[in-house]
């Protein structure tokens, strides 16, 4: 249990495997927002991301016994959702083609600053979806989810130098697009 009294990941996993299905709600509440953000940045669509995350978490529940390191549940969940995202991308045959669904625009009532921020987000998301899935994945895991290269290697199964190279190339490609567009 942590300092706030919330059960640790390992405790939750033990409870679910012991038959307490409802304890899986802790996992969802703890990781849903991050996984949904990751999948949305990967797929360029909130609806597709919701499908990928829901499928991934149901799959995680069904195969929870195969989570060999419950203390590193987060990494394991990201690996599953990453694979669901790749599966969605392959099914939609988008490959390197930018997705056509833009992020939701801000409500005009939100004010000028919010509108400008929404426009900038749309621009960055477009630039992001213009990257190859491998580079996009590396950039999002590093700079959006804030993971270390070691954690990224555990999620993707790639070597750290490969991931570094992908992140570097993603930054360069994004910088190029952002400089052209602004």
């Amino acid at each position, binding site marked *: 249990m942590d300092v706030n009294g919330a059960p640790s990941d390992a405790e939750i996993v033990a409870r679910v495997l012991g038959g307490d*299905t409802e304890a899986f709600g802790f996992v969802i509440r703890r990781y*849903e927002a991050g996984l949904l*953000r990751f999948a949305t940045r990967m797929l360029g669509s909130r609806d597709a991301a919701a499908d990928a995350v*829901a499928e991934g978490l149901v799959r995680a529940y069904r195969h929870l016994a195969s989570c060999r390191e419950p203390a590193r549940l987060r990494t394991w969940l990201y690996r599953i959702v990453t694979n669901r995202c790749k599966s969605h991308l392959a099914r*939609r045959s988008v490959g390197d083609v930018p997705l056509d669904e833009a992020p939701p625009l801000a409500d005009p009532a939100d004010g000028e600053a919010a509108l400008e921020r929404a426009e900038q987000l749309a621009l*960055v998301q477009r630039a*992001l979806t213009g990257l190859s899935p491998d580079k996009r994945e590396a950039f999002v895991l590093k700079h*959006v989810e804030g993971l270390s290269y070691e954690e990224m290697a555990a999620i993707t199964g790639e070597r750290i130098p490969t991931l570094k190279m992908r992140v570097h190339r993603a930054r360069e490609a994004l910088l190029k697009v952002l400089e052209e567009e602004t």
Partner: protein
Amino acid sequence: MNTTDPRIHQVLDGELSIDALPAELRHALESVSAAADLLVAPVPGPSLESRIMAEVRRPASSYLRRVASWLATPHAITFRVRPVWSLAFAAAAAAFTLFFARDAGPQLGEHEGIAQFVGRFPDARSVHVVGTFNDWRPGTIALEDLDHDGVWTATVVLPTGTYEYMFVVDGERWVPDHLADRLVADDFGRENSVVIVRPVHR
């Protein structure tokens, strides 16, 4: 080609202090950081908890049922075939069609072709296809699931051309066919599937 100063990557990777970065390189660093900050914003929308927990609470299906379900679900299959074999197969298929299937099937006009629509909707009570070929009118072309395996199909003769379409499930839920040749954005921010109907030469 690497056009970005490696020191920018070193700072972003936490290998170099930002103080060691010359002022003229800080703009690129700030651009990447600002882009990342925008992407870090939470994605708004309803929680998925009830949807996931509903699925989790359902008893897991048996192995045989899962195998049957997998067999009944459409999957993308990729073949890597040497061109010479694919040409030979195409020639054999063409010969079979010419000699054995000449009089089979409906008689189609010169500018008509066959479109087959297939979708998997296990819990649906009805499925229709609507599109530019029927002015998006629901209820005119119904798909069938004769063996109740959740896979709905319809075969339709249409004038040759390219059409956009969607499935209408239970008369109210419009969903695109993600197995279509292509998906295109419509004017409502959704996606339409695209089917190309080619002429059938006899």
